[in-house]
């Protein structure tokens, strides 16, 4: 079977989000020719950002009504393209955008949906997927049984694609208009943290804190994160208690991350948290409870009071810089 992959890019503030490049990596692994769809207001300008990644075409759907993401305005165009250009694999990175959009597209085109996959195996044109389940305590191997398949891929498991050179042809595609349901949903606003730090999904180093930090969360972690150019993450307990902002949550139901270096500071290591970070290359745990489960996954554990150990770590790193 001749296959043909459509990668759906994600836009933010007029640019293509870097997370899109994980879905491009997936498309390269599938090995079939692929196109990238850049959809949103300003897509025509943003399309240039993804022409050097080996796509046959970069498809552009630029419409003033697509300024803010609303699923019911985006999904119909994706579905229309799958039909008109005969794609059979539709891939998107499993960000909150991809997770919202992909199932609706799948239902629209009668496709099976493989959510949040961490790996793909191509065998004679047949794809099988590996995906984490049970908070990462089991990996399922699965296949979609329909001719069309929609896939969302984990940013933590598909490294961002590097540019491969060349220049894909850019082609404008028509906006298919909104779903009837779009008349009943209205974008109101997007609040996002004024975060100067790298995104959790892209950071090389993450400094994460737990409830033990209390009101000192930022005061203790910020100097270390600033020094290392790190993103700041948090356990669910720290977010629920209001010590950290909800968008910092790392875990089964928060962000899933896999940086080169992950600091777990004052985090006990509930399985829901481990599910979000145990793919990290090197894990450091600082906790005063020597029996905390976090030490079972940490490469380097330091049993110490974080309120003295973290400032000491900052001082030591500065001294050696």
């Amino acid at each position, binding site marked *: 079977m001749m296959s043909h992959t459509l990668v759906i890019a994600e836009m933010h503030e007029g640019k293509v989000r870097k997370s899109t490049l994980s879905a491009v990596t997936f498309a390269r692994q599938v090995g079939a020719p692929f196109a990238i769809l850049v959809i949103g207001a300003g897509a025509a300008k943003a399309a240039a950002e993804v022409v050097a990644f080996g796509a046959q075409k970069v498809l552009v759907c630029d419409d003033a009504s697509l300024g803010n993401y609303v699923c019911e305005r985006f999904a119909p165009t994706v579905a229309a393209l799958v039909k008109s250009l005969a794609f059979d694999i539709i891939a998107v990175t499993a960000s909150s955008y991809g997770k919202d959009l*992909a199932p609706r597209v799948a239902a629209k085109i009668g496709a099976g949906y493989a959510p949040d996959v961490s790996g793909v195996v191509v065998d004679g044109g047949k794809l099988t997927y590996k995906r984490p389940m*049970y908070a990462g305590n089991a990996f399922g191997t*699965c296949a979609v*049984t329909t001719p069309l398949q929609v896939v969302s891929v984990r940013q933590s498991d598909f490294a961002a694609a590097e540019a491969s050179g060349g220049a894909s042809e850019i082609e404008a595609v028509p906006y298919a208009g909104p779903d009837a349901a779009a008349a009943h949903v209205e974008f109101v606003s997007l609040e996002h943290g004024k975060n100067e730090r790298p995104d959790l999904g892209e950071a090389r180093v993450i400094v994460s804190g737990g409830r033990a930090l209390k009101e000192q969360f930022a005061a203790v972690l910020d100097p270390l994160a600033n020094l290392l150019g790190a993103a700041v993450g948090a356990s669910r307990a720290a977010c629920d208690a209001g010590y950290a902002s909800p968008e910092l949550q790392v875990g*089964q139901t928060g962000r899933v991350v896999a940086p080169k270096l992950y600091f777990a500071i004052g985090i006990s290591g509930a399985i829901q948290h481990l599910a979000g970070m145990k793919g990290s290359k090197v894990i450091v745990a600082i906790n005063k409870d020597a029996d905390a489960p976090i030490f079972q996954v940490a490469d380097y554990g330091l049993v110490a009071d974080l309120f003295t150990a973290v400032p000491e*770590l900052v001082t030591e790193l500065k001294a050696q810089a």
Partner: protein
Amino acid sequence: MKILVPIKRVADPDNANKLKISSDAKVDTTGLEWKPNPFDEYAVETALRLTENGANTKARVGEVVVVMFGPKEAESTLRAALATGADRAIRIDANDADLDGDVVAQGLKAIVDKEKPDLVLLGKQTVDSDSNQVAQLVAEYLGWPQATFAATIRSEGDKALHVGREVDGGTLHLKVTLPAVVSVDLRIVAPKSVRSAHTAEGHAYPDGVRFAALMAIMAAKKKPLVEEKLSDLVPGATRKIEYTSFALPPARAAGIKVKSVQELVQKLKAEAKVL
């Protein structure tokens, strides 16, 4: 407002690390207790909050119907939801092995067509398959708007909902006109996350989901619970995703304990080479 809340039972999520994989590569949950999917418990709590005055949680303004796909023995999970305040329950008789998110979504569409709720409210994902898809699928099948990963909901005269969705890096606010499908995230059960049109502004609930009193557990045994058959609702529905095998994740090699901050920095530089 009439709200339909689909719920699922899952193997005890707090002991998910005790899962075993059998010799034929299947998930073995022997010894783990069945529990309601936590996100679905949050959805039931949210539905109760949306159909009451927060100052009088005994009286429903509207109706909450819980629905589950599964065998007879799963009914205890429905009874538990009835005990916390849901009005009635529907069990759609099905074998777990015949279900995937898509079959469930098609079955839910059939139930919605019969029940005609104003709102389908469910957890954003089940913590066994971690798929995060049923709300989006059923919204498309119904042609209704969707608001996924809701962390806050405010009802406007039972006609529309203002939903704060937790998205990467922030909160996206949508206004949806009913009927609609909403999936809920963790923080929906914070004290001020949900406010119905009948609840005073500023009302604060206790944090988390409500527990059933013994009297309510007894009373729940008499609440209506009807059975439907999946094969009647969606004849011939087949799975669109098939799992062939399962495996445990690769174990991380045991790490070491360092004695001091100095040793930690030295190891990160010289050994791990990440600084």
